[in-house]
């Protein structure tokens, strides 16, 4: 039996930069600003950090990115790692960071993730960003834009379970509703199911409003052991469970288009925490495209396989519903700067569990599930966070 991370590590600082269109800050500056805000939130100085994790920047790439940020900040960590890629990698990096803390590789980790995909890209880089996905010999020659990969999943789920365009739209509507209550979100004007269905077709059956945003922005957290966490000014948020699942890289190699390795990630997470889907008060799910949320809700056990479409209807995933999701607005409406993707789900979950969310606060939120996926439903990591140890 492996060593459990349950209750042993806490998040003691969390912050986002301004997000959306942020032309006044470079990608690197966004990393550093997020770091500064998280340190302030944790009430510590940069010299109290002995671990650093960043994600790669697409806009300002460095061979040793985390080392570059350490150099910029003039900190000298004993644990330093760059997350290779992918919006979903964030949660897996927290998994690694928690392990590093429990095994004594370091005591206090700053994890900062950012990019400036909206303001920082040249035309050529923007095209590269769009067309860089897929196998160079066996997928890219067919011209799949990123939404097309997810459209293949959406169509397969429709065919297998009768999921409808209106049900997918309900995911976008919920996220936008929550973003409308978040002054920091990039897109705040409420939308209706008809707005989604009438928006431009991108890759049939996915419309423009089924797709997430392109953004600038950064987010950061500070993690430390549960024992040390008691000495920090804000109420610690504990890692109760965390688990991963990995099934493929290329979607054309996927074992299933309708069931993902979120299932294994979720099962491993629930097992570590000794909790189940019914214990979750709020879920921050990876929502790069609307069908992903429906598949995740099923695979994470919130409903049976095939019932995700009906689960998201009638406000069940909105604030006040049975399972509010993506309370900040998600990648669909809050922001999506690329690699940092899931980090905003983590900082939002922390705020929810601290009760800091004002009008979008989930009543009495004690347990949050955060889920990240990367690739094309390729790599998954789930995490349960709690306002108390369990």
């Amino acid at each position, binding site marked *: 039996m492996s060593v459990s991370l349950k209750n042993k590590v806490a998040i003691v600082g969390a912050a986002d930069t301004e997000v959306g269109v942020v032309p006044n800050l470079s990608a690197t500056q966004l990393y550093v600003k997020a770091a500064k805000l998280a340190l302030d939130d944790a009430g510590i100085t940069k010299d109290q950090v002995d671990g650093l994790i960043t994600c790669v920047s697409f806009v300002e790439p460095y061979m040793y990115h985390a080392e570059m940020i350490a150099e910029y900040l003039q900190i000298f960590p004993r644990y330093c790692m760059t997350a290779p890629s992918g919006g979903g990698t964030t949660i897996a990096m927290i998994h690694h960071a928690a392990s590093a803390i429990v095994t004594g590789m370091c005591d206090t980790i700053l994890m900062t993730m950012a990019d400036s995909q909206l303001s920082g890209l040249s035309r050529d880089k923007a*095209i590269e960003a769009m*067309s860089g996905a897929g196998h*160079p010999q*066996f997928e890219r020659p*067919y011209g*799949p834009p990123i939404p097309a990969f997810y459209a293949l999943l959406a169509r397969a789920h429709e*065919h297998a379970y009768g999921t409808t365009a209106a049900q997918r739209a309900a995911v976008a509507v919920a996220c936008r509703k929550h973003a409308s209550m978040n002054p920091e979100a990039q897109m705040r004007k409420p939308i209706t199911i008809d707005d989604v269905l009438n928006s431009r077709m991108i890759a*049939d059956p996915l419309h423009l409003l089924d797709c997430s945003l392109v953004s600038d922005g950064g987010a950061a957290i500070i993690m430390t052991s549960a024992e040390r966490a008691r000495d920090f000014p804000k109420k610690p948020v504990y890692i109760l469970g965390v688990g991963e699942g990995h099934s493929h890289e290329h979607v054309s*190699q996927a074992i299933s*288009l309708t069931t993902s390795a979120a299932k294994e990630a979720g099962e491993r997470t629930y097992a570590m925490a000794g909790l189940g889907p019914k214990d979750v008060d709020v879920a921050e799910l990876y929502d790069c495209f609307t069908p992903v949320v429906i598949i995740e809700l099923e695979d994470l056990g919130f409903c049976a396989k095939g019932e995700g479409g009906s689960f998201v209807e009638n406000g069940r995933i909105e604030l006040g519903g049975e399972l509010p999701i993506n309370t900040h607005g998600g990648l669909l409406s809050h922001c999506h700067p690329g690699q940092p993707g899931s980090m905003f789900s983590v900082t939002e979950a922390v705020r929810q569990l601290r009760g800091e969310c004002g009008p979008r606060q989930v009543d009495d939120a004690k347990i949050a599930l955060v889920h990240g996926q990367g690739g094309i439903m390729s790599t998954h990591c789930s995490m349960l966070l709690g306002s108390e140890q369990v």
Partner: protein
Amino acid sequence: MAAPVSKPIPVPTRETKPYWEGSKARELRIQRCAACGNAQFFPRIYCTRCMSDRVEWIKASGRGKVLSYTVVHRPVSPAFAGEIPYVVALVTLDEGPTMMTNIVGWEPEQLKIGMPVAVTFEDWTEEISIPKFRPL
């Protein structure tokens, strides 16, 4: 004026060269394991089922069924702009493996999951022909 963007022309590797030579010769080639009979694609040096290195290239039937598809309205790059709307599909070959492709020669009412299709080849360069599929 920026340079025009070209389509991503595959660059064969030692591992994939027989596949692209096959496509040039109007043959869809996949691998079959001489030890256990498993058919596989993408090409690999070992069998994904039994890890034998006795993987051999075979000519596939070129027939299969659509596993899923999407009609792309916003092209991935300017190089594909002249082709919209185009169909990106996953096709499961009769031999078992699944591959990404374009469906060509389609009518909207034809497109459905499970649709039978057959391979056809599109010449891109002296060395590279791209396997695509048409409705049967």
